[in-house]
């Protein structure tokens, strides 16, 4: 999807989009259906193993998801520290100046939420190892209405453009002598509004013109459309599409009876 692909021509990239979509869907559903820590952790292990077998380089993986990992760690700490504060029915593990911090319940809840977030992040990382154009075809071949499939795809297509525009505006402001590092919080907020407004305006204009351009090229003039390319599932693709959800079902019973 972007230039610095973590896997150049790795196994995951060659894989049909449908097993990847199935993996994403079944992993995120499975981790929401139960609050069993061992089960959610085992889903995470499956995802990591898939990424490693798929050829993902660990240091690149870290680079890609660094910010999100940091955020998850921060959420975990905040959750553990403050969950259950002031509750009479639980005994705090830590006492500072008459206040109780860190409860067993808090740690468990924080661990569960963090693990769930990690599952979603890793499933997303697996999806990133594919082309937007293939997901469009996959969605359409799965009988998703094409107008909906295009909405998703055009949204994904626009994200990098928006980011580029944001960098442009940011650079323009710096060139005009605005030093973001020296600004106070209110000044920073004002400066970021100054970045977001022009981007919003140009995004709206672009969306307007884009819809006109699409209509002049016949979009939605027919109830169906044809496609230049066709995706074909090979044996391995079909097997994995079935295997991924089967693994999660199997793990569920394994964890339950262990």
């Amino acid at each position, binding site marked *: 999807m972007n230039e610095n692909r973590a896997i150049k021509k790795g196994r995951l990239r060659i894989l049909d989009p449908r097993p990847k979509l199935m993996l994403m869907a079944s992993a995120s559903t499975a981790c929401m259906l139960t609050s069993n820590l061992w089960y959610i952790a085992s889903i995470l292990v499956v995802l990591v193993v898939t990424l490693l077998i798929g050829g993902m380089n660990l240091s690149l993986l870290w680079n890609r998801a660094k910010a999100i990992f940091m955020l998850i760690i921060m959420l975990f700490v905040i959750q553990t520290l403050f969950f259950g504060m002031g509750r009479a029915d639980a005994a705090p593990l830590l006492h500072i100046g008459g206040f109780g911090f860190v409860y067993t319940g808090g740690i468990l809840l924080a661990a569960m939420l963090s693990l769930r977030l990690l599952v979603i992040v890793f499933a997303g990382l697996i999806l990133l190892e594919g082309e937007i154009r293939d997901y469009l075809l996959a969605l359409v071949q799965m009988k998703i209405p094409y107008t909906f499939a295009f909405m998703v795809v055009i949204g994904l297509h626009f994200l990098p453009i928006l980011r580029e525009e944001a960098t442009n505006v940011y650079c323009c402001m710096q060139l005009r002598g605005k030093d973001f590092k020296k600004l106070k919080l209110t000044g920073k907020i004002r400066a970021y509004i100054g970045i977001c407004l022009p981007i919003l305006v140009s995004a709206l204009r672009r969306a307007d013109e884009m819809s006109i*351009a*699409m209509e002049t090229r016949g979009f939605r003039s027919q109830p169906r459309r044809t496609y230049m390319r066709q995706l074909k599932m090979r044996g391995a693709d079909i097997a994995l599409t079935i295997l991924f959800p089967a693994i999660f079902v199997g793990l569920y019973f394994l964890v339950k009876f262990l």
Partner: protein
Amino acid sequence: MSTEKRIPIEVRNLTFAYERDEKSGTETTTTAVPPALSGIDLTIESGTVVVLIGPSGSGKTTLCKCLTGIIPKLIKGNLDGEVLIFGREIAQDSSVEISMLSTQIGFVMQEPDHQIVMTTVEDDIAFGPENSMMPSPEIRALVDHLIADMGLEAKAETNPNNLSGGEKQRLTVAGVLAMEPEIMVFDEPVSSLDAVGKAHFVEIVKELKAAGKTIIIVEHDYEVFDFADRWILIKDGRVAADAIPSAIPKTLLERELWR
């Protein structure tokens, strides 16, 4: 089809004013907006290259949108007069749909980024034919042909975001040509290109003309198109001059454009 020569474009006494959508409280103030076009009469013969010249805000883009049916089908306003494409009235007749027009008149808008839809060059060219339900093998052949014509062979699977300005523009031209229209309208195609890009675009226009297409080009940089059949000067929404390039005094154009 009759034996008489079909006239690609006829505009009769066309006047158009954009609607101003002002919402001041509860009252709807219908302030009179000065028309962007007033009393345009224009006939464009088959196979000709016409250049529309005029200062910024004179109504060139608005005229293009009227010719391609975008006004009034997609952008509303107060429209008077008639626009005929190959003899069929399109501005007043509400049964004419924009997708029917796309196989007759193609419009390459000013901003390439605003009309590139798909995430690879070949997919974007295929977008139009796919919409009109062309069978896959035929689309493949058409797309490969257009990619070669526009010199984009090495970029077929590239993300359009990573193309140069000139390449982006050739991609949008290919995307519109894929609808196989007989008339092509270009809005300021070369003003943001370097000398090489301009020369490349001029070659494309000459090839399209040789293929029998009727071509309308809006451009400040009119001297690039000295081979055109007509230069038309638009001023304040009216046709101020209309002649072969050599018959229009350069001093007049310069005075009108840079005043």
